[in-house]
């Protein structure tokens, strides 16, 4: 067998690596090259303009406005999603305190778990359409409920003060389910006797979460953080489908700017590539930062 392993490994590895190289790496590299041209996308003609696109970008108020919105998402979405995810996962896995002895979830855990995971099964476009109807100012579920209680009914997606937050809320909503399952699985790996000991000591649920669960889940939380940070720097599909960046650019994001510049209202592919390159570096820096600042000692159970 020893002699047969290289052909085998090569047969398995070369095709995916080639595909990855052609369809992932080469477009990335190409984006760098295109970002230094004034390519307009519908002919093969393009002049090199050096760093001009990046200089324009530096003074482009629309791009800065979009980056600002992504920055807010970056600050809010991971915190909210991980917070809610941890809370729900805790309740589902060790929230139950009544009845049988030992560590169990609240009543109806299986049902909740399914319900939370539901948004994960839907495609993002469906989620956006669904919520667009929920936020409908006159016939929507949300305003219907508010009216039933005699509360004022805002226009949600039609108001620059609320539109962005409405999209952000949907972003959190659609992500939480996945992290409930992820954290739940990680919690299942924590030895039960630790919790039993904590319970015997009379710790509250909050203390248990803060002092025991989170430190033991740290690796998973860190991964979640990176995923969510990357998602927060994107947000393109939800925004495009729900508000298309409006009203008055109040919910614009970098991804949408890039799309509009290339495919939407203009055909400036060179400039759009420059926006893409900036996005790549922003995402990379955020991921690296998240990894660096979150580094802690790994705990291994024996």
């Amino acid at each position, binding site marked *: 067998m020893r002699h047969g392993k290289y052909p085998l490994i090569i047969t398995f590895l070369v095709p995916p690596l080639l595909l990855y190289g*052609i369809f992932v790496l080469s477009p990335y590299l190409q984006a760098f090259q295109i970002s230094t041209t004034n390519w307009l996308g519908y*002919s*093969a003609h393009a002049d090199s303009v050096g760093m001009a696109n990046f200089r324009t970008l530096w003074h482009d108020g629309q791009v800065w406005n979009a980056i600002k919105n992504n920055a807010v998402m970056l600050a809010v979405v991971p915190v909210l999603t991980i917070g809610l995810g941890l809370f729900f996962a805790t309740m589902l896995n060790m929230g139950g305190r009544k009845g049988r002895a030992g560590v169990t979830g609240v009543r109806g855990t299986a049902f909740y778990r399914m319900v939370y995971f539901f948004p994960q099964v839907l495609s993002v476009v469906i989620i956006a359409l669904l919520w667009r109807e929920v936020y409908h100012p006159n016939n929507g579920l949300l305003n219907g409920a508010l009216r039933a209680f005699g509360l004022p009914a805002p226009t949600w997606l*039609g108001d620059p003060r609320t539109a962005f937050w409405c999209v952000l809320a949907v972003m959190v909503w659609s992500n939480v389910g996945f992290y409930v399952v992820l954290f739940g699985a990680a919690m299942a790996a924590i030895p039960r006797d630790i919790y039993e000991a904590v319970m015997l000591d009379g710790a509250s649920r909050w203390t248990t979460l803060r002092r025991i669960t989170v430190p033991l889940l740290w690796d998973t939380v860190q991964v979640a953080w990176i995923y969510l940070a990357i998602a927060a720097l994107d947000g393109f599909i939800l925004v495009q489908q729900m508000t298309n960046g409006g*009203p008055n650019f109040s919910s614009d994001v970098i991804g949408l700017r890039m799309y*509009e510049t290339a495919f939407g209202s203009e055909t400036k592919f060179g400039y759009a590539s420059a926006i893409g390159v900036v996005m790549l570096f922003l995402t990379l820096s955020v991921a690296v930062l998240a990894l660096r600042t979150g580094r802690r000692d790994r705990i291994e159970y024996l």
Partner: protein
Amino acid sequence: MNRREILRRTAAAGLLATPAAGLLAGCATSGGDDKGDAGTYKGTKSEQNPLGVKEDAPLEVVIFNGGFGEDYAKAHEAMYKEKYPKAEIKHSATQEINKTLQPRFVDGTPPDVVNNSGAGQIDFNGLVSQNAVADLNELLDAPSLDQPGKKVRETLLPGAVEVGSYDGKFLVLNYTYTAYGIWYSTKLFTERNWQYAKTWDEHIALCKQIKAAGIAPWTYAGKHPRYMSWPLIATAIKFGGPSVAMAIDNLEPNAWKSDAMKAAADAWYQIVKDKYILDGTPGLDHIQSQTAWCQGKAAFISCGSWLENEQAKVTPAGFNMTIAPTPSLGSGDKLPFEAIRGTAGEPFIVPSKAKNVAGGMEYFRVMLSKKGAQDFTKKVSSLTVVAGTTEGVELPFGLSTVVKALEASGSNGFNWVYNNYYRKLERELVDAACGEFFSGRSTPAEFLDACQKGADSIAQDSSIKKYKRAA
């Protein structure tokens, strides 16, 4: 072999693959340029074949699958095939014209006919400035297919050629003829004994009456508020004359802050101030607002003549929608009340690098034949740019009011094209300004400032090609 070793070898394999990827980089912009004329289809020109179509050359047609569907195009293709039985026609329809065709334009192998329309429309400024569109002048001078003694040019409605012209070259065939105006339900107005108002003061008085009756006077596409820029600019043009539109199209300094635009913005601000707009409108998209209007929740809406077709499924029987021109500001208006914005829409192009340019133009000649145009009007109840093709065709109610309005408007009709020249200016900048204005967050002065700022940003952007029109 342990895990570490596998990882190390994998990394090595990855390094080997990288140069291959590097070689591929640069391909996206490197195709097509030097292919030249080789491989294009040319036939011999004759009286029967004025455009020189090669009779067995294949023809590829890409249709935007939107409000008009694709069946009308299949009918046109059948007519082409009747004339050239040996030609093989490849038909496809998509809603994403830009994403589907962009690589083919770059590669230099675009289809022969493209219906560049819809939300996925390719920005014409970009297409035209890259010489990606064939000059259709030859088509205009070719004889009409079924109107003997007339050139194609002479069969078209006025304004049809101008809209598709860039720097004097006719590049885009806009096939439909669209009127833009204010719509109301004849049924609702007869029941309530309301009269459509011809002056702005009367319009405001009528709005008051409508509101008192418990109906919102207005609604609009809150998520695409540019729909409201249409009646506002129309009001200004009727007040100040067609030069108002020309200044805007030519990006003249302070074109948006002309006296006429100020008067129009001040007038329209009244419906915002007096809360004559349906609650929640800023949160509705075009379909949602049009549906609320069809349900009788609002009396007026601004739209083009595609409205009837778009709302066909939800319009109650007997609703009888009617188009009307914008009310006059006063007796000092340069254009009469009847003047309405009529323009050719639904753009078709033949890419300049298409294999069968002559065939593409011949396909347009089929579309512009009396038979082709009548078939289109019957199938999708929309007018075409071919004059006199509604004779003998039974039109739905709304479309018949469009025909009447266009006739009454006659030579007073007007249009603007800045939205074709600079898609971003209307779709993003004026759109956002309208959203703020019609939801009451900005004053008329702030609204015009925002539009002007948008126009200035386009004017100052040296990467955008500028076009001027003289008429």
